[in-house]
């Protein structure tokens, strides 16, 4: 069976990673920024799965890590959304530019 080469997987995950970075830096809406971090995490997941499959096909560590990351990401999202809701209650906005009171 013809396999998809590893390089393709890595190119995909790199593209995904930089889309995430780009989104994180350019969006002002916190929810969108949260989505961008999810993209970054997913690109990492792809890396783990791909390397596991191509380099050590008889082991499962990479896949375990992926599962962990998904679980952590899920709980992280619930926390982040709770924080964002609180921020909204306080500032009446979730624009990252305007919630900059935590400074010197």
């Amino acid at each position, binding site marked *: 069976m013809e396999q998809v080469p590893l390089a393709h997987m890595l190119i995909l995950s790199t593209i995904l990673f930089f889309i995430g*970075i780009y989104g*994180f*830096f350019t969006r002002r809406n916190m929810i969108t920024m949260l989505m961008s971090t999810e993209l970054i995490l997913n690109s990492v997941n792809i890396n783990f799965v791909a390397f596991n499959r191509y380099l050590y096909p008889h082991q499962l560590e990479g896949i375990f890590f992926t599962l962990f990351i998904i679980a952590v990401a899920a709980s992280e999202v619930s926390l982040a959304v709770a924080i964002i809701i609180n921020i909204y209650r306080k500032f009446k906005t979730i624009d*990252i*530019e305007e919630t*900059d009171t*935590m*400074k*010197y």
Partner: protein
Amino acid sequence: MNSDIYILLILLLPLLSFLFIGLSGRKLSTGMAVSVGCLTLITTLIFSIAVAFDYFFVKGSVGGVYAPQIVARFEWLRFSPGMSIDLGLIVDPISVMMLLVITCISTMVNIFSIGYMKGEERLKSYYAYLSLFTFSMLGLVLSINIFQMYIFWELVGISSFLLIGFFFNKPSAIAAAKKAFIVTRFADFGFLIGILILGTGAKTFDFLTLIDRLTHPGVALDSLTGSGFLGMSCLTWALILVFMGGAGKSAMFPLHIWLPDAMEGPTPVSALIHAATMVVAGVFLVARLFPIYSISAPEVLQGIAYIGSFTALFSALIACAQTDIKKVLAYSTISQIGFMMFALGVAGWGEGHDEGFTASMFHLFTHAFFKALLFLCAGSVIHAVHSNEMKDMGGLRKSMPITHITFLLACLAIAGIPPFSGFFSKEAILSAAAHGNPPVFYVGLFTSALTSFYMFRLYFSIFWSKPVDAHAHNHEKGQWAMNIPLILLAIGAVLAGLIPFGKYVSATGKAIELPIHVMFSVLPVCLGLGGILVAAFMYKKQNEIPQKVTKLLGNFYEAAYKKFFIDEIYLFLTHKVIFNLIGRPAAWFDRNVVDGMIQRTGSTSVNTSNAIKNLQSGKLQGYTMYFLGGVIVLVVLILIKFL
């Protein structure tokens, strides 16, 4: 009769009265405070008379000697097995005599103050301070131990400070209180060093042991006389320094500058503290250590004689030129204490030489009565006239008859006219000086003539000088609180000299004779009468003579009026010399080097944090940018390293 309990009570009652009046606050009525203060003192007066009676007549002398008795004693601070500081009470002739003087004058002053300070808002604090003063002065004379004496010495200083500055909304009173405190404190610094030298040398602070060890040859005496500093032995230094403390309290030249200013306090306080009791503490101190002075360091005693006689003459000259009646009395006090000091100074140890010691104590005793009386009379006059200046007075003899008579009696006593008390004590001093140190004797003779001149100048200026105002009302009516002490003290001032003092108080405790040599007395009495006549001639009626004499004396009068510029010299020394040469450089060093280092450290960290605080902008994406930048740099480094 258990007199030990009485002595404890004498000391504790004034303390309790001070605590009671001082701590009870607003709830206590003024009348209550006054009666507590007065009654306590009357009780202590009765107790001290009982103690004196018991000591001199019931217990009496053993083999002709009045021995010191330790009434109470307990260990307070222990340094090493052989050396500790004890607290206790000693009873010996001079402390019993001082007990009588202090309680007697204190009682009179307390009663007098009822009239004099009437309507004063802070009367309660006034009575509390008076009680504190009495307590500390009694503690001072009853101390068994030079260190204990030092504690009470400072307590006396602080109560004097409080009472001088009693009218604390008057700037001059504040300044005077500060001056008195600083000058005496400066002198006490010497006293403390002296105590420490004596204490380390003799390995004891106890008076009796100290005197014993330092008057008999032994290890203690050798260690102190063996080592020296600047050409004098340690013992000499210690005794000079101890005398310095005494000179500060007793206003000896050149530390006398605080006493005239201390007259800013209420007049009864001047009578009590700055005339009769506290200022003789220095004389008492020298008398306490007299055996050491006379046996082991006669050269210091000689110095004391010269300082005393110089002070006596010097302040008598100033007193002749002053116009403020309290200042005249203040300088006369300094002069009389000078008499007591040089009487101690000319005395020696042993049979036939220690007349001066008894004479000094005798003069201390009689002086307390007539000087307190003079001050209280002055208080009466000031109360009536509302001024301290002589020119506002005159012709008061009809409107204040009791004050007039008592003042006259006190003046006669201080001038040394027989048979008033001052005559006996002054004769004793002069005859001791004539035997011991002729130059001092001549100074004393001249000073006693001056004394009668300036006292009668005061007397005539207050009570004669101007014609009597026929319509003047009697200022003294209803002032019983002020008149009774005057009368009682006048009785003391007249009769105190008849006590056979030498029988009870002497350096060794053995009775000595204070003979009155008629031939010897003629000269001082004539000089005294001469002073009175000159004063009467110049001041009895208003005339031109004082002005003419002033012109004749010219600059000398001016200098005496300005107190020989001693205050100015001190101001020059402190402001110009000490402030500029030591104070300012020290302040510069402190501000720029000591403080500067701390300031520089602080300001550096403040500047640094100001510079970098903008990094914490609160912008989340900014932080992430730095983080990403850091990651990229790390990656680049790793790539360079491994590829």
